[in-house]
């Protein structure tokens, strides 16, 4: 299993301190991060693959310093965004999944086989040649997940992946996450998604205020938000 280390990490947006001296070691297979809006949880998640570079401290993924070896880290860490629309680049489903592999220097046949296998895995084979922008919200999120999985990352980070989805699609996405072999870090407001995780981290005003098994951590979060 992979290892993500935050060493005294802080980050600010101008005068606003959004992550305040956080130190964590994540080795669990399923890690959830919860917190109110503005608590710093998304910023923390973005640091894992270098989308945000901390102003102090450092983040290390499998021994690689994210600030210095960002490209190598991003090959290992796949990122699923809240709004799948922002993640889709190519016009059709198959082309969008294949787009991720454009820089992997694979043989065309190998890339095509990997794309087909990934589409089958997330249940989008039937929609492979459909325009991506005409998919439903749930299907778009599955496409976003497929676009990440096709690169075979060792870690998947998802920032509120079910927030824009209805209950049925949210459940479908959660099931796909459950089936992943990779280490998974999910930022979410939907507490039921995290109940089966091994570890849940609660953030408040940029700091970790609770950290442990889901039962205790989620109770702490519920107490925090009243």
């Amino acid at each position, binding site marked *: 299993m992979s290892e993500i280390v935050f060493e005294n990490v802080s980050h600010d947006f101008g005068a606003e301190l959004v992550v305040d001296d956080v130190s964590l070691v994540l080795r669990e297979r399923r890690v959830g991060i919860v917190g109110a809006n503005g608590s710093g949880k998304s910023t923390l998640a973005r640091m894992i693959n*270098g989308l945000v570079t901390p102003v102090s401290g450092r983040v290390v993924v499998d021994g690689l310093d994210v600030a210095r070896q960002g490209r190598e880290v991003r090959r290992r860490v796949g990122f699923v965004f809240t709004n799948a629309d922002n993640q889709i680049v190519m016009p059709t489903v198959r082309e969008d999944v294949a787009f991720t592999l454009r820089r992997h220097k694979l043989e065309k046949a190998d890339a095509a086989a990997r794309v087909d296998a990934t589409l089958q895995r997330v249940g989008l084979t039937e929609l492979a040649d459909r325009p991506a922008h005409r998919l439903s919200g749930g299907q778009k999120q599955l496409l976003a997940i497929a676009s990440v999985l096709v690169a075979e990352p060792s870690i998947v980070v998802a920032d509120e992946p079910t927030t824009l989805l209805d209950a049925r699609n949210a459940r479908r996405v959660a099931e796909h996450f459950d089936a992943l072999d990779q280490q998974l870090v999910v930022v979410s407001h939907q507490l039921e998604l995290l109940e089966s995780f091994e570890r849940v981290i609660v953030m408040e005003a940029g700091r970790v205020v609770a950290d442990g098994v889901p039962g205790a951590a989620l109770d702490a979060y519920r107490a925090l938000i009243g």
Partner: protein
Amino acid sequence: MIGVFHPGTSLVHRAPALLKLGVLAVIVTAVALLGSLVWLGAASVLVVVLFAVARVPFALAWRQVVPILWVLAFAVPVQVIFGGWEAAALMALRLVLAVALAALYTLTTPVSATLDAMQALLRPFRRWVDADRVGLALALAIRCVPLLAELVREVLEARKARGAEGSILALAVPVIVRALRTAEHLGEALIARGFDD
């Protein structure tokens, strides 16, 4: 190009994108130079045959040509007044054929094949032009059309809900702000997918 690809295994589908682009350029140039209705009629038959070979359903082909008919509804009467019937017919046929041929290309060619063709074309100039980057820019431009159309539709609905139908400000400000935010998110997504240079 925006999601009109019609999958298939016909000869036209299987032809290399670069070859199709070349043939498209030659035929459109020939159509523009042909000054006889008879020759343009022959070219029309050729285009119909190409659509048949590609096994594109008639309704789908028709949908690609319809938008140009709206333009012709205005342009043809003007041309008739100033140039006569024959000139108007030549212009209308040339435009319809050019649009139909371009549509045939997009219906039978995935965008990724077009990007590969573009990159192959630009490869001799790699000292001066980054073919990967040009391909990516083209893909993003194509992607942004439905994205922006959806964004404008949402803002128009919000403007209507607030009773500000006529306000340019209520349209322009949210569209610009959201377009910039979308661009930022798209940039983040590209970095996350390994396009970080």
